[in-house]
């Protein structure tokens, strides 16, 4: 269970990205975070595994206060939390396989890994993960040779080999076309349903939200302005929608 309590993030230039955000995520939930660009979705996700240091508040992950951990403890928590990025964030110059193996960095012997050496079983595990996302034959290509959708699948494979208990996904499909978007979201859904991985995912398109979310929170200007279940989303009114996306927003397609 993840409990976020009074989380506030103020950047050094004075921007208040998150203001007193509190919510709880039960194990196995598929929580979708919606909101405009700049509403604080990315900051929230990055605060949870502390790629960004929160200014105030606590983040409790199975009753461990993530915000209070030292570096070594934080690394042990991070390896159980996968992260999928909008811009994929692959290391473009490395082969696909090494990109996936990077997901094992928190587990393997750190000294060997510095020379890009991973034991046989780790390599096997990475190949299996690539198989899962259908990219086994690309294992030895350079990551930069892949298309956008393939890159995101590698990103998912990298999160998969972490054997995560929770997956944070920051607009994982915003850079992809709608067909690819559904295929990527499908992987997340299977991860959620088959392996029981808790998923926190920020999304832009309302139809994707309605299709995949079990619960939704809406952010606006760093505050939670909406909280609801999948059913609530399906019944969402234009007023509620505008509250999250602002007055000028229109519902697209739904």
């Amino acid at each position: 269970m993840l409990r976020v309590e009074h989380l506030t993030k103020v950047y050094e230039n004075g921007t208040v990205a998150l203001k007193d955000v509190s919510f709880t995520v039960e194990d196995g939930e598929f929580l979708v975070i919606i909101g405009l660009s700049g509403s604080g979705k990315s900051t929230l996700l990055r605060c949870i595994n502390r790629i960004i240091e929160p200014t105030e508040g606590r983040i409790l992950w199975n009753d461990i206060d993530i915000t209070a951990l030292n570096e070594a403890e934080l690394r042990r928590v991070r390896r159980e939390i996968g992260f999928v990025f909008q811009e994929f964030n692959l290391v473009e110059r490395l082969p696909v396989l090494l990109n996936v193996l990077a997901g094992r960095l928190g587990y393997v012997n750190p000294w060997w890994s510095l020379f890009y050496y991973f034991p046989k079983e780790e390599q096997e595990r990475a190949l299996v993960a690539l198989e899962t996302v259908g990219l086994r034959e690309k294992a030895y290509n350079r990551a930069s040779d892949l298309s956008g959708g393939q890159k995101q699948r590698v990103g998912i494979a990298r999160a998969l080999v972490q054997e995560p208990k929770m997956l944070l996904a920051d607009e994982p499909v915003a850079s992809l076309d709608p067909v690819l978007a559904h295929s990527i979201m499908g992987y997340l859904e299977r991860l959620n349903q088959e392996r029981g991985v808790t998923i926190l995912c920020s999304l832009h398109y309302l139809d994707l939200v309605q299709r995949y979310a079990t619960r939704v929170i809406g952010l606006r200007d760093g505050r939670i302005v909406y909280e609801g279940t999948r059913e609530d989303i399906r019944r969402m009114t234009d007023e509620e929608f505008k509250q999250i996306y602002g007055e000028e927003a229109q519902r697209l397609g739904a």
Partner: protein
Amino acid sequence: MKVLKRIGVALLSLLVPGLGQAVAGAVRRGFYVFLGTSILSGLSIFVAAQRARFPEEVYGTSARIFFILLLSSFFLLVALRLIYLALIRRVAQDEILYRVGEGLFLVAVVVVFTLAGPQLIERVAPPQAERLLYMTLLLVMAVVLAGLWLWNVQDAWRVAEGREVSWNGFIALVLLGTLVLGTRVVGIDLPKAIREYRETERILGDILWPWRAAFDYKATELRATAKVQAPCPPGSTPPPVNQPKEGEPWVVVTPTCGELSVRDEKGKLTYGTLLTIRGGGFVPGKKVKIKWENPIGNEFTPRGVGPTEIEVGPDGTFTTQLYIPDVVIPSFAKGPQIHKLHVVQPGALEFTGKLSREMKLALQAMLESIMIGLMATFAGMVFAVPMSFLAARNLMFNLRTSPQGLVGGVFGLVLGGYVGWQVAARVGSMLGGIEKAPVSVATLGFLLVGGGAVLGFRLLGRALDRLSQRLPTWARAAIRYGGFALIGAGLGWPLGLGYAHGLLAIAWGEEQAAAVATQMAQIGAGLGALAWLYLAYRWGEEGPVYIGQWIYTVTRLILNVVRSIEPLIWGLVGVIWVGLGPFAGFIALTIHTIAALGKLYSEAIESIHPGPIEAIQSTGANRLQTIMFAVLPQVLPHFTAFSLYRWDINVRMSTVIGLVGGGGIGFLLIQWIRQVQYEHAGLAVWLIAITVSTLDFISASVRKRLV
């Protein structure tokens, strides 16, 4: 009212340039106008005050006047045009009229200067010319400054009107003024350069086409020899008279024996026997030389006894006469001696296809230079890579620790450095002491001390950071306050000493300053401790201490200072350190390369995508793993490109380093230039040019592929 305001503003600007603009609301504009005008005025006064700048050198003066006038009128033209554009741009029909005027002006300038210029150069005598030059300068500067002033008044007016304003006229006038002043300060004298080029021509020719000196040549010569006995042997026969031979050079000398000439103490010569010399079989139209060989085989050109260079007739023969020269005969040589007379005709030089000694030397030195560059680049890289990570903003700025961690880190630094020093000293003494092996011991010590310090900093810092989390509050406070006080004292002590020996020594003299040095150190330590105790109080238990930013700042500072000292100066240091030779050059280039590459590398690191770093950190990777997986793959191509570029620079630099004794081809080059062997110097220059452009081409094409 409005008109009144404009007039007031314009008047203010007339008094102080820029004031009107500032009053009218354009404060920044007013400031720049004031700055530009006052700097140019000050510069004019300064240059005008140095009127005796070239008192002796007056030959080129009239030509300089010509040059300056030409230059000024050109820029005046540009200025006029820009002012016009700024002023009347909107009046379209005026444009054509202006263009015509501009064209006429240009024609007038060209005509006047082609006609008047040479007249001026010829007529004006040097002292007058100097005065005329000076007056011209004053005149031009007065016009420029007046123009600037007027522009400024008009600008103030327009600002007050609220109209669109431009900088064009201002920039043109300032540029014109600066360039005119510049020609005087630098003493630019194009005519002189043209006039005196001839003397350079020969040297330049040698340097530009030195390839004759790159090869060995065999001299072929025609030679014929006759024997002469001196004195004539009583009772026996002198050597037989030669007979002319067909198809080869011959010489016939008669008589074949006689008396030597004698030179007395005053140098006066009493002639001996006159010889008649006939020769043939030589190349017609060219000269032959007569050489004398004494009985022990030394050959010399006889002096004062007759012509020794004779023109060969069209049939290849010649006839001449020569007294037997004065030859010093060793006292043990008694009786008649056999001398030889040679007739020598130097022939064409024969190309052997072998490289000359100098060319071999140059090639060898070039190889040395390339190697110096290569080794310095590699050694520089080894040090620059870790330094660049410390000097990368994006890697260092989020690095922080608790105050307790800082205490541990600083003590670790000192301890590690000390241990490293001790080990280095032991190893050094095993190698025969610092005197015997200065560089290896110093390098080793440097590495050990630095490495020990970094390791100590890291290990002890972390250890204390973790340990203190398990300690009670009072213990943490004790570590913090105690440690900070010690750090403060440790920093303050040398500062106090430095104050005494540095600043006080200047004011009071060495001895008095030395007397108070200890007190000063103590005061410094006390103040430092106090300051750090305050820090310990302010930062509290948590801090955080942005240790990364400190390391970043210090590393950057070191890199910048080292980089701003030219390799040439490092070369001098290297020569003093390890003596003349390539090793000194290597040291100089390595030091500079570390700083230069450190900066370039760190900027490459700063420009990488942060995304992969986030991604790798998210997997639970530690700092080193993040660097290896997210940073290194991104920066490696840039690192390689920069290193190649640096190699290229280093090879070029190593030639310069050679000038101060740092080995390589530069060493050879400066020697040849000093020995006035311009052809050989030309070889060196060519080799450098070929090597540098080849390397440039290679590194450019490799870089293009990498980045």
